[in-house]
């Protein structure tokens, strides 16, 4: 095939095609809208598409392309996880609480992408208020994994991952609180990165756990993620008090650097492998499935062949990441979600007595089970008599986890590990067992708690009749996203896992 179909092109390729005027932004938008409307995976929310709005944005992009004033993403369609508020599309955060909600403004991340000419296709399904690891907690139904529709796509950015994998959009935004970009990216065979906490503005990102939430791109290659991340990040000092006062960067700058010179000292890249997660001699252990074990060490062989060296490292306190995260995140959620009270926006119970009853009934009707559970856990660990034993103790261990990473990064440049202990599980398999879902987050939570950048890239497939993608996690030190993307890009220059699609064709 001499000419790739539009949906087989990545972000950079589409941007170049559009700049060459071989195809118009309106034609591109129509192509993707058609695919999105025909999709059966539930990646877009019901009501998440509005072709008139999308086509109007595409026409404006065409005008800028004709005038030669387009941005670096001019005319490229993108879709947004529904926790980013948007003026032109309803925003629900996957909750009944916000059914039909219209924000008066665009999230900073959405606005920055639009400033570079991105055209919004629509809003993507996700776990309610981003609380979940399987996308089964959405009030608007689960999302199906494009590789096997009987399986979950991962979560909470499940709609984003499924939409990219199914070729409904060249890329999407996601958010990651405890792994919500990395884990669905792994389960759907795409690439996703969560930057250092504070790199991307949280303004207009509906808050779940404020000290953990970060935005990031999900796409089909590390190179495309680098392009998008460069646009999404940058200081937003007036609007987000946690936005880092660090200049925007070109995260693509080091993509081409060979791994033999990708170390901090200009020497070979040193990859740290946490021995409590994966030890080659020990075989698959610590809940890691044989598929994950095998693909991980194959990926390490590939990286070694490219000039990387390895160093066993220890992250002893990372073993406590699950209880620590599931205390801190619900504590912050219980506070953040107190704003949903049936007064200022969102759902209000039709039948109610006094003001207290209005609050209680509104919240009972508007929130799903998992959200209620996390609000209650958070309320409990913050309450008198339990604060020190749980919340404060969790924050102290969080410090120990962050310290462990700093000791590790004194010996290595990046850390590699699995994203999840298994491949995507079956829809419904863990739906009634929240703790089983929490346990599957073990490998993504530590970097989140420390605020470090982390990414997932495809590194192999399972031997199932319908092969399921496996992700490789790379964790970097603070502000070291460019090195992560460098390593991922070099890996992708020598492998084709990221170019495979659920329909079997290489893109």
């Amino acid at each position, binding site marked *: 095939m001499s000419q790739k179909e539009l949906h087989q092109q990545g972000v950079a390729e589409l941007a170049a095609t559009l700049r060459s005027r071989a195809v118009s932004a309106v034609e591109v938008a129509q192509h993707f809208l058609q695919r999105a409307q025909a999709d059966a995976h539930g990646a877009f929310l019901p009501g998440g598409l509005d072709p008139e709005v999308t086509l109007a944005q595409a026409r404006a992009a065409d005008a800028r392309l004709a005038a030669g004033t387009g941005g670096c993403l001019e005319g490229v369609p993108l879709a947004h996880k529904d926790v980013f508020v948007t003026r032109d599309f309803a925003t629900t955060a996957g909750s009944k609480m916000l059914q039909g909600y219209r924000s008066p403004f665009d999230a900073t991340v959405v606005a920055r992408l639009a400033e570079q000419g991105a055209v919004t296709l629509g809003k993507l399904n996700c776990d309610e208020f981003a609380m979940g690891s399987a996308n089964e907690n959405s009030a608007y139904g689960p999302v199906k994994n494009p590789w096997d529709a009987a399986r979950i796509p991962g979560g909470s950015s499940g709609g984003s991952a499924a939409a990219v994998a199914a070729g409904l959009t060249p890329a999407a935004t996601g958010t990651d609180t405890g792994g919500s970009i990395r884990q669905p990216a792994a389960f759907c065979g795409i690439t996703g990165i969560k930057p250092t906490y504070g790199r991307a503005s949280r303004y207009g990102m509906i808050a779940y756990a404020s000290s953990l939430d970060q935005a990031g791109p999900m796409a089909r290659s590390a190179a495309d993620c680098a392009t998008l991340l460069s646009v999404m990040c940058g200081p937003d*000092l007036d609007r987000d008090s946690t936005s880092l006062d660090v200049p925007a960067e070109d995260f693509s700058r080091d993509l081409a650097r060979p791994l033999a010179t990708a170390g901090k000292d200009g020497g070979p890249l040193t990859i740290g492998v946490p021995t409590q997660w994966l030890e080659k001699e020990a075989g698959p252990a610590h809940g890691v499935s044989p598929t994950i074990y095998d693909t991980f060490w194959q990926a390490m062989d590939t990286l070694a062949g490219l000039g990387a060296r390895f160093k066993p490292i220890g992250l002893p306190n990372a073993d406590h990441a699950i209880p620590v995260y599931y205390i801190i995140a619900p504590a912050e959620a219980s506070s953040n979600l107190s704003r949903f009270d049936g007064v200022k*926006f969102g759902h209000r119970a039709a039948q109610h007595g*006094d003001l207290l009853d209005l609050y209680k*009934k509104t919240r009972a009707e508007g*929130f799903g089970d998992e959200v209620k559970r996390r609000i209650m856990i958070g309320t*409990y660990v913050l309450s008198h008599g339990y604060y020190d034993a749980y919340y404060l103790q969790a924050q102290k261990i969080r*410090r120990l986890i962050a310290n462990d990473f700093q000791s590790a990064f004194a010996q290595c440049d990046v850390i590699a590990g699995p994203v999840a202990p298994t491949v995507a599980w079956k829809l419904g398999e863990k739906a009634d067992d929240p703790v089983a879902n929490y346990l599957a987050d073990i490998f993504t939570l530590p970097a989140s708690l420390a605020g470090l950048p982390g990414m997932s890239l495809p590194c192999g497939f399972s031997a199932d009749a319908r092969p399921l993608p496996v992700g490789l996690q790379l964790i970097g030190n603070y502000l070291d996203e460019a090195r992560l993307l460098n390593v991922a890009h070099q890996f992708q220059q020598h492998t084709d896992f990221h170019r495979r699609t659920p329909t079997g064709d290489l893109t």
Partner: protein
Amino acid sequence: MSLTPTDIQRIAHLARLELQPDEQAQALAKINDFFAIVEQIRAVDTTGVEPLPHPVDALAGTDIALRLRPDVASEPNQREANQRSAPAVERGLFLVPKVIE
């Protein structure tokens, strides 16, 4: 440690959530499942360890720190736009059930 039905009722009240009896029973079982995996952290020795409430705090010693912005209003008045999604509004005010008799 295990939570009791009374704990669940108290937390639900504090969190302003009305729970039906079957929801209370389910919440009790699942939250207790969760606290079973939490117990391990009580044994961790954190003597002399400062809590890390915020990841930027881990960057202490670099020139990156949490900041305060000047205490000036930076947003224009957008009352109408902001109230567009409110369930009940009258003359620019949010309506709630009568609070004072």
